[in-house]
């Protein structure tokens, strides 16, 4: 889970955020550049953790950042700016998931080299192929979950937001969000256990973890 900062630190950070946002609203180009530079990496990670590797990622990052700049007037300082930006990125990811239909293939060049290490000790191109298979499997698992449930689950389980924060980020009630996360977990596990290769991978990971 995301570590909660002491209240005074959080207040100070929000004050800084509000100052930066105010400068951006006043048309300060330098402030806008600073904001884009500071949060570009975070937006990429948030989008990747919700969508997985995607060929349209550079476009989506830009769309999300443009949306951030356009919506800055709505930032009131209720939450940290990075949380608010994650909310915008999550919305962009959600809209993309709704648009994205059909099988989602993962290009080899988008699979990080570390992805194959979890599955085997093979090396080089073979390891990349192994990693790609795993990534495709995982992507397939998550693609089987509806967009709303997927976004809620990944914001909570992978990005570390609490259920209340996820509910606020997705404009939903806490009970609805809880239900989405629970159902998403259930569907994810069911699909993973149905796939023989994934079951084998989970078994071997569990044995390694246990041993």
């Amino acid at each position, binding site marked *: 889970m995301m570590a909660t900062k002491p209240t005074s630190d959080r207040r100070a950070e929000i004050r800084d955020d509000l100052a930066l946002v105010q400068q951006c609203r006043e048309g300060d180009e330098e402030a806008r550049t600073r904001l884009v530079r500071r949060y570009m990496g975070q937006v990429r990670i948030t989008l990747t953790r919700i969508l997985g590797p995607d060929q349209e990622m550079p476009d989506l990052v830009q769309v999300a950042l443009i949306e951030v700049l356009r*919506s800055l007037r709505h930032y009131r300082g209720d939450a940290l700016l990075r949380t608010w930006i994650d909310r915008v990125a999550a919305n962009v990811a959600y809209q993309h998931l709704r648009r994205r239909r059909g099988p989602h*293939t993962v290009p080899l060049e988008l699979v990080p080299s570390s992805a194959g290490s979890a599955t085997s000790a093979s090396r080089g191109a073979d390891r990349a192929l192994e990693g790609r298979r795993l990534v495709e499997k995982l992507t397939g698992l998550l693609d089987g979950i509806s967009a709303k449930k997927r976004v809620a689950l990944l914001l909570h389980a992978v990005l570390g937001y609490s259920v209340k924060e996820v509910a606020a980020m997705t404009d939903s009630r806490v009970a609805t969000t809880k239900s989405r996360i*629970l159902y998403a977990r259930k569907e994810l596990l069911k699909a993973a256990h149905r796939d023989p290769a994934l079951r084998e991978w989970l078994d071997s990971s569990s044995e390694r973890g246990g041993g």
Partner: protein
Amino acid sequence: MIKPSCAKARRLLLQSEGGDVESADALWLESHVQGCEGCRREGEDLATIFRAWRALDPPRLGSRRMERMERAVLSAPVSPGAPPRPGRTWKVPTIAAGVAATLAVASLALLWYWRQPVQSRGAGAARLAPAAPALPRARVQAGHVLVFGPTGEARALGHGSTLPPGVTLHSPRTGGGVIAWGSRATLGLAAGAQVSVRRRGERPVITLVKGTVSLDVGSTPGRHGAGLSVWVPGSGEVIVGSARVLLSRQPGNDLRVAAVRGEVMYRWSHSGSLQEKPIEAGQILSHRLDRVRLLDAPGALSGGTLLAAGVPTPSHTRPPVAARMHAVAGRPRSTGCSLEALQGALARGQAKRVLRGVASCRAAGQASRALDGLEARANLQLGRVRRAFAQFLALAHSLRGTQQGQTALYSAGRIAWTRLARKGQARHLLEHYLETYPKGAYRASVRQILRRL
């Protein structure tokens, strides 16, 4: 079946992560998780999946790439918009009414424009008919644009050409662009370019910066995708991205491909077999969308600038170039053999029907990789594992270097691991592959499978 106590434990677990679980419940939860193998295992499995998913974090961007993205973001027009709200778009009636009124004027002007005879518009950009005075005319600042009229006529516009009203194209950097007029949306630009397309009272169908070409041809009952790589010379980005082309299966929908600059070697897949053809500057080719799949492979295009877009074209106005393309592909326009029908049958588990269909297609003179793939999958469904395995391997070899080839190899590898390995039957088939294809592209992968058996 999940035990009631396990279901309760899951709910409490989620609550405990938010810190709002009572102490008695917390104690019960702890004792349950310690004693329940199912819940413990489930937690471990989820943790493993999420750990692997987190490992997909993208590598850091290079400073040049970051600067380019920064410039693109900062150069985009920042007009105040509605706050982002998931799943809720354009529900404010006043905005919708305003936009509808504006676009009604735009569509009337557009209708007037396209109703003019083609001759009066002129072939060259400089002789395009003047637009309605109240509407802005956009100019191609960089790159090239392919514009389609509602009846299917297409024109390739080069640098400095003027676009019809209603289309705005803004490109602060060098880039190429595609706009299909008459289809819902199309674009494909290099870094920094931005296109916004509005059509007939609808919200902007596309407002994107850089990259992806995306089409949506009207309301499409059945959609399928195709990959397309666009190479923009001198943009610094080389491969702009893979295009996703959403298209209708209604008759008469064409994919247009135009070379605007230089000569482009254009490759595509037709019923599973590879085709290629050089396209000269100014030439426009047309494909029936339900028959052609563009290859999603870097290097599928070489040289020149290629633009592509889809547009619904009424059959009576279809230009003769479509017929020429079919002649090149050597396929009759309509045959009794439908790949889509066979794929549907396979999805419904009617494997024997698929095998009969494949046989009749071949008897009618149609032989393709797609049929081979269908046959292999049907055999797998029927439990003819060894035969399916051998067919997938042969398919992987014949489609080597393509996405489909890799998919076939995955299928073969999966069969080897999950079905044949236990019976000890995979080894000699894989060795047979190594002997049969001494220069096979997948020898390394096959050896890898062998080592794991």
